[in-house]
C-alpha cells in the first residue's frame, strides 16, 4: 500500500514534468508561429505591429493616434510597448542588444537623437523604408531631420517624430507661495539670462523651504548645453569626425558650471530626470521648475496626473531658444511584418498625426507641414493653464539649429549625467566633479 502510494506520487511528478515540458515547447513554438505568420495572410488574422517607445508620462503621445488607427484598420493592429522612461540608461542598451541578437525589438522602435549616430552606423539593423515607398516623405521634413534618418550607405531607416524646442515648466502654486509672479509673460521677463534665473531661484528658496526651485541639475544642464552648443559649432561631446571633445568644447564646461552653481546654492531637489522619484516629485510639488523641451510637456502632465492640471505653466527659456531631444521611428530588419510596420511608421509621422499629438500632448512636430498647420500654431495646452504652446514652440522650430551628436553620444551622455547627478546628490565632490566627468566620458566613449 505504502509503496503503491509512493509510486503514485512519483508518477504524478513525472506527469507534471511531461506536462510542463509540453507547455514549454508549446509556448515557445506558439510564439514563433504567431510572429512568423506571413504578411500576406494578414486578411485571415490581424497583424500586430509592436511599437516600442520610452520617455514616461505620455511619452511619444501615441495613445489617441493608435486608438484611431486600430479602429480603422482591423487587419493591422498597433500595440504600443512603453518600455521604460530612461533612454540612455535602459532603453537604448537593451535595444542594441536585441538588434544585435536579431530578436526582441519591436516592429517599429523609437530612437532618441542620442542613439541616431550609432543607428546610422549599423545599416544591417534596419529595414530600408525606401522599399516601401517612404522616400516620398522627404518633402515633409527639414533637411537635417530627414538626413539623420539615412544610414551611412544611403538607406532610409528613420522618420522624424518630434523636435525639442525649449521652455521652462513651472508650478504656479509654488511661485505664488514664493511671492513671485505667476503670469507666464511676467515669469519669462523674470529671467532674461541664466544668472537672472539663478537670482529668481535664490529669491524663491528664501521664501519656500519644503520645495526646491529646480528638479535637479540635469534638465537645466541639458538646456544650457544645447544653447551653448549652438554657439560652438553645433557640437556637444563629439566633433563631426566623432572625436571626443568633452574637455575642449566650451559649451560643456559652461553648462557644467551652471549646474554646479545651481547645486551649490541649494536650488535643486537633487532628483535625476526620468527616475521614479523625479516623476513622483512632479506630483508632489518637490520642485518648481524644470527645463522643458516640447516633448517634456507630455512627460510632466502624464507624471503629474489629472490632479496637477492648472498647477503647471510654461514660460520662455533664459537665453532665448535651443533644442533638446527629438526622436525618430525606425523599422528593425528583424520585424516579421516590415511592410505593415512601415505603414505604421508612415502614419505615426504624417502631418495630421504629428499635429494631433502636439495639440493633445505637446510633442512639437518635426514634420514641417504639421508645423504650419493652423491648429498647431494656435494650439493651447489645457494642462498647462491653456498656455499657447503653438506660439511658444513654433518660434523655436524656426530658429532651430540641429546639433551633431556622435556615434556614442548616448553612452557618453549617460556617463556625464551620472557625474553631474552625483555631484548634486553629494556622492562626487564639487572640486573633483569636472575631472571625473572628463574621465568617465573618455571611458564611456571606449
Amino acid at each position: 500500500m505504502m509503496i503503491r502510494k509512493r509510486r503514485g506520487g512519483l508518477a504524478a511528478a513525472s506527469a507534471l514534468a511531461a506536462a510542463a515540458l509540453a507547455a514549454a515547447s508549446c509556448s515557445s513554438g506558439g510564439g514563433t508561429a504567431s510572429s512568423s505568420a506571413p504578411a500576406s495572410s494578414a486578411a485571415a488574422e490581424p497583424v500586430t505591429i509592436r511599437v516600442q517607445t520610452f520617455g514616461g508620462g505620455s511619452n511619444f503621445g501615441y495613445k489617441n493616434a493608435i486608438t484611431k488607427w486600430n479602429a480603422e484598420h482591423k487587419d493591422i493592429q498597433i500595440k504600443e510597448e512603453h518600455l521604460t522612461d530612461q533612454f540612455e540608461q535602459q532603453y537604448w542598451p537593451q535595444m542594441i542588444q536585441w538588434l544585435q541578437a536579431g530578436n526582441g525589438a519591436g516592429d517599429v522602435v523609437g530612437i532618441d537623437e542620442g542613439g541616431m549616430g550609432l543607428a546610422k552606423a549599423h545599416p544591417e539593423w534596419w529595414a530600408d523604408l525606401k522599399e516601401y515607398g517612404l522616400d516620398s516623405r522627404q518633402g515633409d521634413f527639414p533637411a537635417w531631420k530627414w538626413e539623420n534618418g539615412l544610414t551611412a550607405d544611403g538607406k532610409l531607416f528613420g522618420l522624424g517624430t518630434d523636435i525639442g524646442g525649449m521652455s521652462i515648466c513651472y508650478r504656479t502654486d509654488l511661485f505664488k507661495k514664493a511671492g513671485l509672479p505667476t503670469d507666464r509673460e511676467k515669469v519669462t521677463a523674470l529671467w532674461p539670462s541664466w544668472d537672472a534665473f539663478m537670482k529668481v531661484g535664490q529669491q524663491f528658496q528664501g521664501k519656500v523651504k519644503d520645495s526646491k526651485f529646480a528638479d535637479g541639475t540635469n534638465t537645466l544642464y541639458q538646456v544650457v548645453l544645447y544653447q551653448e552648443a549652438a554657439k560652438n559649432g553645433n557640437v556637444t561631446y563629439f566633433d563631426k569626425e566623432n572625436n571626443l571633445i568633452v574637455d575642449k568644447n566650451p559649451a560643456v564646461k559652461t553648462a557644467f558650471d551652471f549646474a554646479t552653481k545651481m547645486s551649490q546654492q541649494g536650488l535643486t531637489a537633487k532628483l535625476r530626470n526620468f527616475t521614479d522619484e523625479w516623476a513622483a516629485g512632479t506630483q508632489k510639488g518637490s520642485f518648481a521648475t524644470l527645463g522643458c523641451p516640447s516633448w517634456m510637456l507630455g512627460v510632466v502632465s502624464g507624471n503629474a496626473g489629472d490632479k496637477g492640471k492648472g498647477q503647471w505653466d510654461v514660460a520662455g527659456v533664459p537665453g532665448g531658444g535651443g533644442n533638446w531631444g527629438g526622436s525618430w521611428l525606425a523599422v528593425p530588419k528583424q520585424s516579421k511584418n516590415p511592410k505593415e510596420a512601415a505603414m505604421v511608421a508612415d502614419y505615426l509621422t504624417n502631418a495630421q498625426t504629428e499635429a494631433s499629438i502636439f495639440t493633445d500632448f505637446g510633442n512639437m512636430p518635426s514634420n514641417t507641414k504639421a508645423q504650419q498647420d493652423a491648429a498647431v500654431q494656435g494650439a493651447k495646452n489645457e494642462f498647462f493653464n491653456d498656455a499657447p504652446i503653438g506660439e511658444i514652440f513654433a518660434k523655436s522650430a524656426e530658429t532651430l539649429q540641429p546639433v551633431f551628436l556622435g556615434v556614442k553620444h548616448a553612452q557618453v551622455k549617460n556617463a556625464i549625467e551620472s557625474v553631474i547627478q552625483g555631484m548634486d546628490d553629494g556622492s562626487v565632490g564639487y572640486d573633483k566633479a569636472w575631472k571625473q566627468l572628463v574621465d568617465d566620458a573618455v571611458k564611456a566613449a571606449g
Partner: protein
Amino acid sequence: MSIDTLPRAVRHTPHRPPGRRWRSRLDVKAMPYTLVSPYFILFAAFGLFPLAFTLYYSLYDYDLAGTTEWAGLENYTKLLADEDFWNAVVNTVGMFFLATVPQLLLALFLANALNKRLRLRLAIRMSVLLPLVTSVVAVAVVFTQLYARDWGLVNWILGWFGVDALNWRAERIPSWIAIATMVDWRWTGYNAIIFLAGMQTIPKDLYEAAAIDGASRRRQFWQITLPMLRPTMIFVVLNSTIGGLTLFSEPTTFYNGNVDGGSQGQFQTVAMFIVKQGFREFDYGYAAAAAWLLFLLILIGAFVNFMFVRRIGGTK
C-alpha cells in the same frame, strides 16, 4: 552453471530470461556510469563549454561597432587597473559582510529561541520562513519604496529621532545597509531553520552532563551548541558566500532595474558590473574576463570562510 539447470533459482526469481547473466554483469558494470552520465553530459554542455568559452572570449576585444580583435591578456590587465571594477569588488565584499555577519548571528539566536518549548511552534517556524517563499524582485521593489528619500517609511521613522532624510540610493554606506536588509530579511529565517535542524541532532545527554557540571545555559551554548553546529555552519556559510558574492537582484531592483548601481556605482556589484560591460556596453571580452575574476573571488571567499568556520568554537 547455466540458468536452466537450476529450476529452483528460476522459481525464486521468476522472469529471468536467457542471457540474463551477461545482462546483469553489464548492469553492474555500466549502470553506475549511466546513472551519473546525465549530470556530466549536461555539465559538459552548460558548464565546461561556458567556462572554456568565457576564457576564449576574455582574450578578445569586442566593440559596440561589432569589431573583434585579439587582445591577449589585455582585458585582465585593464580590469586590474579599472577603478570601477575594484569599486564593484569593494561593494560586493562590503555588502556581503554587512549582510552575512548580522544574518548568521541573528539566525543563530533565532534558532536557539526556536529550539525552546513553544506554543504555535509550526506557525512561528513558518512565519520566519515566509520571506523565502516571496519573489525576490517583488520584495526588492517593496523595500525600495520603504527606503524612498522623500516619502519612505524608514526616513519617516528616522525623522522621529531627528535624523535628516537619508538619500539611500545616493550614499554609499546607507545603500549597502538598505540592500543588506533586503538580503537578511530573505535569508535569516531560512538559515535559522537550518541551524535549528542542526541543533536538534545534538545529543541531549551532552547538555545534561554539562548541566551537572554546573555550566550555565550561555556556556552550554558556546561550549556545546556552537562547536556541534560546525557542519551545518559550513554549509550555511558556503551557501551565503556564493549567494552574497554573486548578488545581483536586490541592488539592480534598488536602482530601477538598472545595472549601474547608483549614479556613481555606489552599490554596483561584480555581477552587475559583468552585465553592464557585456550587455550594456557590449564589451563581451571585458565581461568574460571579469567573470573569471569573480570566480576567483568566490574561490577565495569560500576558502577564507571555510577556514574561519573551522576555527569557530575551538577546533578539534
